């Protein structure tokens, strides 16, 4: 505690300095006077007495100095002194200050903005109580070796009730609603949750109450719902009276019992469901298949569990795995008759795998991790280039301050003291830059968030928390140290005598600075080139994606999605509604074709369906699930997908007629080789004994289905009229004019047909494809931006050093010209060194880029890591920019007048 007392005393010593100084003066003079008087009494003369007193006392100023050092905090007092001086210096050269602060603001801002994203996307936890106790329950599939996370309800029940490792086990499953209130219906996102969902997460109601175990007992018997805060705000204007009222969800009155707190979004950051209903309502909201809560073969829910604090993840996994296998074995027992030995073995080879659940289900995060970290590295490199640039600037500036430096050294300033003062200056600059950078970061982050899906970006909270601010501060200090150390390095070898002379840029002086600055240029070039090459690779990849042959015609197609099944309509009504809609839309002006499909191309998702193929014997672990879509007649005409052979579905292919399918070329080759597939049959029945019953009546060309970068996939189409399941259907309309114009007509038509039928995902095919390239576009855009920024900084540095070198060697150039050198010779002489530097930097940069581009691998589409276009193009660009940057100041060398130059010193 004693040091604390001393600290307080010293801190108070910082204030009232003038009063305290006066007191000390008085105290010491009293002492001296007393001594003098004593000496006089002993018989000395007054002058001798005074001198003797001073001798006995010792150095008066030293005493005061050491007294003052002890009284206050000399470190901070010196700091304040340095800061005052630094501010004066910066104010004196506003241009330099502005350029430096702006450069730093951009560099630190870009880094902070990206860190802020990394912080919230990759490091952020679920907004729930003790998120680190949560685990995501998954199982490994023995065939794909990938972790799966969909469980059946019976399995969930068993894991919940019989485990020993968890305090609570929740389950959830996504569901969409047609929500209607006050005569207005719309599409709402939702989630079915187990009764212990909120209890497990530790979330309390904002209003009313949340779903509890008592709301999740009997299938279909709990018509209650909880709204998210955002939905409540948006849709109900934050009206508290809505709690206790009924919403109409898919034609069922459902009582709103409460509102979740603001900031709570559930268990996955990429989603924020509007409405939550009890899991037992699955029989109402997902009525097909009817036995989804009982049949262990329907896997459709994900599980999150809260560990008991004393149980480790490893222990929990081991104990849960045993339980999982007991349940699996019992399930297999029941299905003994219909399952072969191989399948049984495969099922039992599956293992429980627990993953940290502090971030919940992190699908999109996993997807974004690599691009985000990549961009973070890129901005880091840009900051390094900026640092090198500023170090160069400071060196040039200090070369002009030689006089001041030598005077300070001569009157006794220590080197350490000088370095300390310069560091104070550069740190002041970098902190200023950092502060400005926070604004840049804020802007950058807002811009970046614009590229993310809306649901996702809305869930990213507190973008500027203490971690981000801390990062900005650290980045500032780091950069300040980095570029502030360059002049310090230079100083440590400067002598007082050299610098005190009236110094001139003669041939010999400044050699060291020149070397240091050359090294910095080399570094900048070597760092910038990989960035440019990276940008080139992404650009090439994006171009490839844009130019990819999709297999369909993307222009002039209007898309919208609807789901009348949600309104609880009987099948007959749905069917006639679809038929009417198609007939009406086809009759509209400018419409060339219209059709319906369960899967819209390049929308990111697709159904797969297990098949059996007549005359084809699959291998033990062969994947027999091609993509599948259910379509109306006219689909291929709408999409512009050509037939290879056979015919399209017609209105005659009804449920009463023999079942038919159309397959794509890849599927035809896969299963039938060179034989004609027409007339062959495939089957989709679960029952292994049922023979294939769907006749292949046509083969169409391949297309891209889920994303543009995919490899050719097997695919088959079944006609709507013969399919039981009618889920979301996308209406696609090919027009001869602008597809967006048809939108209002379609909307009005649907409203006339059924006012309670919301349309959603309304867009055009071109926009949908463009949206699918969002991430690629963002990366290309950012990497190009940063690559160019780094190149610009490097070329500015290069320009500066050439100018420096020219002015340093004015006399030498003058002599050369006087001796008859031609301007070309001079130019070659001046630029030669730079050309060497840049070439060397580019060689190292090329090697680094070659090594690093392999890491990009899967992020590039049909671009080799040694893509000649990107490499050559980037080298060319950097070379041209560097040449221009060097040529401009070098030209001045050729304009040197030998007479003036020789008189220069």
């Amino acid at each position: 505690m004693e040091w604390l007392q001393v600290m307080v005393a010293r801190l108070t010593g910082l204030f009232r300095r003038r009063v305290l100084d006066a007191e000390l003066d008085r105290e010491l003079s009293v002492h001296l006077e007393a001594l003098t008087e004593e000496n006089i009494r002993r018989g000395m003369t007054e002058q001798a007495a005074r001198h003797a007193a001073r001798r006995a006392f010792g150095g008066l100023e030293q005493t005061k100095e050491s007294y003052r050092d002890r009284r206050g905090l000399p470190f901070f007092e010196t700091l304040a002194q340095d800061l005052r001086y630094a501010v004066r210096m910066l104010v004196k050269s506003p241009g330099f200050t502005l350029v430096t602060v702006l450069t730093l603001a951009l560099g630190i801002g870009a880094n902070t903005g990206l860190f802020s994203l990394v912080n919230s996307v990759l490091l952020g936890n679920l907004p729930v109580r003790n998120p680190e106790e949560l685990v995501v329950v998954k199982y490994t599939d023995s065939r794909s070796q990938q972790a799966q996370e969909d469980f059946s309800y019976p399995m969930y029940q068993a894991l919940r009730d019989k485990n020993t490792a968890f305090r609570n086990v929740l389950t959830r499953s996504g569901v969409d609603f047609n929500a209607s209130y006050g005569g207005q219906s719309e599409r709402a996102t939702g989630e079915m949750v187990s009764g212990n969902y909120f209890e497990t997460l530790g979330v309390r109601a904002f209003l009313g109450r949340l779903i509890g175990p008592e709301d999740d007992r009997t299938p279909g018997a709990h018509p209650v719902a909880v709204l998210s805060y955002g939905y409540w705000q948006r849709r109900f204007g934050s009206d508290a009276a809505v709690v206790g009222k009924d919403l109409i969800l898919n034609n069922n009155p459902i009582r709103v019992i409460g509102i979740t707190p603001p900031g709570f979004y559930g268990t996955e950051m990429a989603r924020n469901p509007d409405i939550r209903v009890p899991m037992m309502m699955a029989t109402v909201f997902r009525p097909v298949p009817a036995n989804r809560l009982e049949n262990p073969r329907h896997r459709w829910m994900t599980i999150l569990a809260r560990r008991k604090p004393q149980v480790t993840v490893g222990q929990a996994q081991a104990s849960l795995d045993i339980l999982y296998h007991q349940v699996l074995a019992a399930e297999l027992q029941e299905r003994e008759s219909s399952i072969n030995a191989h399948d049984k073995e495969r099922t039992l080879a599956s293992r429980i795998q627990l993953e940290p659940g502090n971030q919940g289900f992190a699908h999109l995060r996993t997807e974004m991790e690599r691009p985000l970290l990549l961009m973070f590295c890129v901005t880091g490199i840009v900051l390094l280039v900026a640092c090198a640039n500023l170090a160069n600037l400071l060196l040039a500036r200090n070369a002009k301050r030689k006089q001041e430096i030598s005077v300070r050294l001569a009157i006794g300033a220590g080197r350490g003291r000088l370095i300390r003062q310069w560091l104070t200056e550069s740190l002041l600059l970098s902190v200023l830059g950092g502060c400005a950078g926070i604004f840049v970061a804020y802007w950058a982050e807002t811009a970046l968030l614009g590229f993310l899906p809306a649901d996702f970006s809305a869930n990213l909270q507190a973008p500027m928390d203490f971690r981000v601010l801390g990062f900005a501060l650290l980045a500032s200090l780091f950069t300040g140290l980095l570029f502030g150390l360059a002049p310090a390095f230079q100083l440590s070898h400067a002598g007082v005598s050299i610098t005190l002379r009236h110094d001139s840029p003669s041939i010999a002086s400044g050699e060291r600075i020149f070397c240091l600055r050359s090294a910095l240029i080399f570094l900048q070039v070597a760092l910038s080139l990989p960035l440019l090459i990276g940008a080139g690779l992404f650009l090439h990849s994006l171009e490839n994606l844009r130019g990819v042959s999709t297999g369909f015609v993307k222009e002039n197609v209007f898309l919208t999605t609807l789901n009348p099944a949600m309104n609880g309509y009987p099948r007959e009504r749905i069917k006639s509604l679809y038929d009417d809609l198609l007939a009406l839309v086809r009759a509209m002006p400018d419409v060339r074709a219209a059709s319906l499909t369960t899967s819209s191309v390049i929308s990111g998702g697709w159904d797969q369906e297990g098949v059996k193929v007549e005359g084809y014997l699959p291998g033990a672990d062969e994947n027999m699930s091609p993509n599948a879509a259910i379509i109306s007649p006219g689909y291929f005409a709408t999409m512009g997908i050509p037939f290879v052979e056979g015919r399209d579905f017609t209105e005659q292919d009804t449920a009463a007629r023999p079942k038919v399918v159309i397959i794509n070329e890849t599927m035809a080759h896969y299963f039938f080789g060179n034989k004609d597939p027409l007339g062959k049959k495939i089957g989709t029945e679960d029952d292994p004994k049922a023979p294939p019953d769907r006749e292949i009546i046509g083969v169409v060309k391949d297309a891209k289905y889920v994303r543009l970068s995919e490899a050719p996939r097997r695919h088959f189409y079944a006609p709507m009229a013969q399919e039981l399941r009618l889920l979301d259907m996308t209406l696609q309309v090919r027009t001869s004019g602008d597809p967006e114009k048809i939108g209002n007509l379609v909307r009005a038509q649907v409203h006339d047909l059924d006012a309670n039928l919301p349309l959603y995902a309304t867009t055009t095919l071109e926009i949908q494809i463009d949206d699918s390239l969002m991430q690629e576009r963002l990366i290309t855009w950012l990497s190009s931006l940063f690559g160019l920024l780094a190149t610009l900084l490097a070329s500015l540095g290069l320009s500066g050093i050439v100018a420096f070198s020219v002015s340093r060697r004015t006399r030498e150039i003058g002599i050369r010209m006087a001796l008859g050198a031609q301007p070309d010779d001079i130019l070659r002489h001046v630029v030669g060194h730079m050309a060497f530097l840049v070439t060397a930097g580019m060689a190292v940069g090329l090697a680094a880029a070659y090594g690093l581009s392999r890491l990009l691998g899967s992020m590039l589409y049909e671009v080799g890591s040694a893509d000649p276009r990107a490499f050559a193009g980037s080298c060319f660009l950097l070379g041209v920019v560097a040449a221009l940057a060097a040529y401009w100041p070098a030209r001045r060398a050729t304009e040197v007048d030998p007479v003036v130059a020789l008189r220069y010193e």
Partner: protein
Amino acid sequence: MAETHGEVLQGTLDLIVLKTLEALGPLHGYGIAMRIQQVSEDLLKLNQGTLYPALLRLEQRGWISSKWGVSDNNRKAKYYTLTRSGRKQLLAETESWERMAALMTRLLGRAEGA
């Protein structure tokens, strides 16, 4: 070497000041310096100025306190007083000093005897 002979170690000076204040009661800087000179009979070569940073250090630690007062010859002077914790410190330091002194005596005595 002769000069360093009489120099005072920091801790020693602290102890001397504390002891002086205990023996003589409240005293100003000059008085303390005089007393030290008197007692040491000029064995200690002390720059009297170094006393003041030492006094400040002791005050910051709370072992002495200071107050402006009037001296015998009617001058305003700053008087230093030993505080309660200063007294404790003095005891502790005296003890450890004596232990050290005894140790050194024993050590040096034996060395001489050998």
